[in-house]
Every structure is written in C-alpha cells, then in structure tokens.
C-alpha cells in the first residue's frame, strides 16, 4: 500500500514539505494542439503541476480532460479542473475515470462561473451536485472505491483532491468556515483565488491558522501577475469576486506604460516572497493568464527553481 493518496508529483512535493509552485494553462478555443504544446514548454520544469481550466469564464474551449491528457503525454503533471456547471454526476464520474485512465492524478473541484458570463449564455446549467459534493465524490471514488450509488469501481481513480477558496468574496466572515467545510468534505489541497489585497489575505490566513486548517490541508496562494493597469481595472470592474486595491492600480499607473508589465511582475514576486514565509501557506499557484511565456522568468526570479524531485 502506497503511503500516498494519489502518488501525484504535487502530493509528493507537498508531503515532503517543499514549497509548491503550480501553474495554469487555458486550453485553446479550438483543437489547436500545436499552440497548446507551445504553451506547455514555458511551464515544463518550472512548475510542479499545471491546472487545465474547464471552460473557464463559461467560454467553450477544448475540454479540460483532453487538455490534461495532452499535458501528461508531454511529460507535465496535470491538475484537471472540473466545474459543476456543465456535467451531471454521471458525466462527472465518467470523466474522472477517463482522466485517471489517461494519467491524471490531481483534480480541482469547482462550481464554475455562471454560464451567463460566457459565450453561450443560452445554455442550461446543470449543478446536479455542487463543488462541496464534488470534492466528497472524488474522495469517495478514491478511498471507498465506489460510485455514488455504492457500486464497486473496477480500478478506482486515485486522485489528489483539490478545491478553490476565494477569501475575497462575501460574506467575508463565512469564508473560513466554507474552507473548513471543503477540507472536511475531503480536499487535500486548496488553491486560492488570485490574491491582490495582501492585508485581507494576511487576516484570512491568521483565521485559517487559528482554526488549524493549514494542518489538515495544503493551502496554495493564488498569484496573477498584472500585465498592465488596464488589466487591473478590467478585473476590478468585471471579474466577480476580485478584490483589487486602488493602491495596486495606482502603483501600476505610476510607471510608464511600457514598464507596467515589469511592475506587475515585481508585485507578484514580492507576494511570492511573503507567501514563502507566511504561516499556513504551503505553496503558490501562479495563474499567468495568457502569459505563460513569462512563467520561466517569474519562476527564476522567485527563486523557486529548480523544482524539487521527490520519489
């Protein structure tokens, strides 16, 4: 019997006590595998696992399952994202089995942005189960080796179970309780929403540590480098659940437009340095949105290279 729940690289890194560094990759709006593989090259060797997003912002793209399989084929470790918006429990369990069969060992269980945000707002939303129950379902399939109907699974999917946490959504006081519920449901690791409001996140982590949640689960802090002040303004206005302090926008605007990307990266690097020391934070999840080509440089400057190898 393995000492690991899934044996994924991410699980081994976290269990060994290393500061984890994960990345993210959005699949293409099409079947452009060549472009996807090009993006993989920026991530390979620079992160421990790569989140493959699932119709993010409710825009239809290549499936996260196919994207995850392509990651695996190319020698990267996928973190297969699954939302509750597009699949009922049958399709979810089928895709979990399929993902495992294709080499996937990490999953991130999410509710999913509402379809009205995306490019098919006419779609029916499913929500047969919610993200809390998805966590419990993946854990059940792994630990009990059973489907939801209690039938046995012939070769169960052994996934390292991830969940999201947005400390910046409301009501704030409830967020830590929701995190605790996700851990109780079976989350092995958490990747937070992009953090920009450091003061609020420090407070959130203090509550998390006070409740001892960091000892039950690995918490990876979400970092998104801003490309410019325009991106920061857009996210503040249009992306639900984002908390972008005016000081950050001011900081980006304070430099020449050509220098704003560098300023955004500097802020991200400062954040990563603080997260390395922050109690309860086990790693960073870098979401360089359509900016994968800057990941090698960010990883290098953040002093997280080379990535540790754990057997």
């Amino acid at each position: 019997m393995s000492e690991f729940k899934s044996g994924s690289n991410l699980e081994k890194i976290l269990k060994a006590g290393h500061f984890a560094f994960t990345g993210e990759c959005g699949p293409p709006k099409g079947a452009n595998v060549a472009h996807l593989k090009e993006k993989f090259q920026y991530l390979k060797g620079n992160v421990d696992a790569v989140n493959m997003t699932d119709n993010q912002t409710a825009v239809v793209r290549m499936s996260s399952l196919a994207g995850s399989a392509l990651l695996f084929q190319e020698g990267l470790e996928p973190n297969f994202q699954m939302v509750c918006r597009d699949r009922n429990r049958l399709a979810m369990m089928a895709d979990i089995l399929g993902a495992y069969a294709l080499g996937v060992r990490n999953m991130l269980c999410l509710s999913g942005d509402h379809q009205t945000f995306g490019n098919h707002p006419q779609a029916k939303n499913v929500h047969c189960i919610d993200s809390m129950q998805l966590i419990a379902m993946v854990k059940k399939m792994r630990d009990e080796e059973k489907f939801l109907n209690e039938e046995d699974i012939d070769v169960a999917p052994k996934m390292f179970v991830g969940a999201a946490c947005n400390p910046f959504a409301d009501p704030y006081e409830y967020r830590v309780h929701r995190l605790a519920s996700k851990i109780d449901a079976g989350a092995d690791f958490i990747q937070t929403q992009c953090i920009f409001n450091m003061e609020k996140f420090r407070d959130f982590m203090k509550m998390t540590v006070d409740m001892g949640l960091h000892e039950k689960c690995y918490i990876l802090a979400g970092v998104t480098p801003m490309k410019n002040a325009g991106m920061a303004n857009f996210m503040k206005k249009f992306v639900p659940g984002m908390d972008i302090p005016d000081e950050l926008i001011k900081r980006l605007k304070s430099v020449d437009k050509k220098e704003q990307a560098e300023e955004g990266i500097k802020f991200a690097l400062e954040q990563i340095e603080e997260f390395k020391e922050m109690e309860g934070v086990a790693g960073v999840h870098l979401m360089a949105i359509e900016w994968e080509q800057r990941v090698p440089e960010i990883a290098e400057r953040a002093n997280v290279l080379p990535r540790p190898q754990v057997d």
Partner: protein
Amino acid sequence: MIVADRKSLEEILSMVETDKKILVVGCKGCVTVCNVGGAKEVEVLASALKIARKKAENELEIDTHVLERQCDNEYVSQLGDTVGDYDAVVSMACGVGPQFLSEMYREQVFYPAVNTTFFGGATQHGVWEERCAGCGTCGIHLFGGICPIARCAKSLLHGPCGGSSNGACEVNKDTECIWDTIVKKKMEQGKVDDLLAVKGFKDWRSARDGGPRRSIREELVEGNI
C-alpha cells in the same frame, strides 16, 4: 402561486393572424392574483387585439370569458357549448390552462397568451419573485427557511460561491445572493454550524428530472373523502 408574464401583443397577433373570430379565456386563479390573466387583463388584451386588427384593416371578432380555474376539468367543461364557435381560443392562464383546454376540446386550437415563469409571490406591489423550484423534496428548514435550489443561480447547497459580492449574485447586481442572506441570518442567530456539514447528494428524481410527475391521493380517488 404560479407567476406569469403576458406575451407581447405582436406575438399574440401573429398566433391569431389567420383567425377571424376568437375567444380570449382568463382564469381566476394565480394569474388573476399576479395581474396577468384575470378579468381585467382579458378585456385589455381583447381591446388591444381588436384595435390592432382594425388598424390593419383585418377586423377580428373577439368574445371573452373568465373561468374559475383552467386547471380543473369541472370548470373547463363550462366552455363545452361555445368553444366550437371560434377559429381559435387564446388562454391567459398559466401553461396548465391551455393544456387542460386542449385535452378536453381536441378539435380546437388553444394559444398561450402568457409565459409561465415561476412559483413565487409579490414582494411589493407590482414585483413578484421566485421562491420555489418545485424540486419535490423540500428542505428549506435546513437553510433558515430559505430555498437555495430555487434562489441561488447555481443551486448551491453549501454556502456562497466565489462570485458573491456585497450581497449581490455574480449573475446580476440586482439579484440578491441568497447564500449571503442565509449565512447572515444563521450568523445573527449564532447557528452558523447548521450550514457546515456536507449534505447528502440530492435525489433529483422527485424533480422534473425524474420525468413528468403525478400525485395520487388514494383516499380521494376512492371517494372516501
């Protein structure tokens, strides 16, 4: 009650485009209460149709009638003597009404004049809001007497998603985040722990997902009550 909105005059006009003589039938049930298909609205629609057709130099003869309930065959049968006198019948009841009418009078054409929207009630004069999704297994007591199946855009059972902001839903700033309301109510009562346990997987068979539903009360069928 069942809440509905009237279809546009243009849509109703296009339905009866080729008809010369129609009956507009209202209902004294829910659609009267939500001011969409009662006696008053039947007359308003009939007048509007007549004026529009007169303007188009294609006059339309219209009679009106309001049934006690269109979802009850006892009342639907009251149209028996006259329903055949018309080219078509426009029903202003919820989606149930024109179906009961169609089932009883197979030769007649029935057009729905309203869009049935939800189960809800009036929160102020002129404003109706959804409260129930008719899922068939009510558990509102688990959520402070508030239904997240009907009132959360994602039907979440374990708290607000990451898009909840200042009490508003991510879908629309004018839509209340019902989980914000549930959580705040429980926090005020010091009962937030009620919400934390992972709930059982919902059995959707009792909802529309299990197929069309039927409710049988044997004692009534047998005529004992």
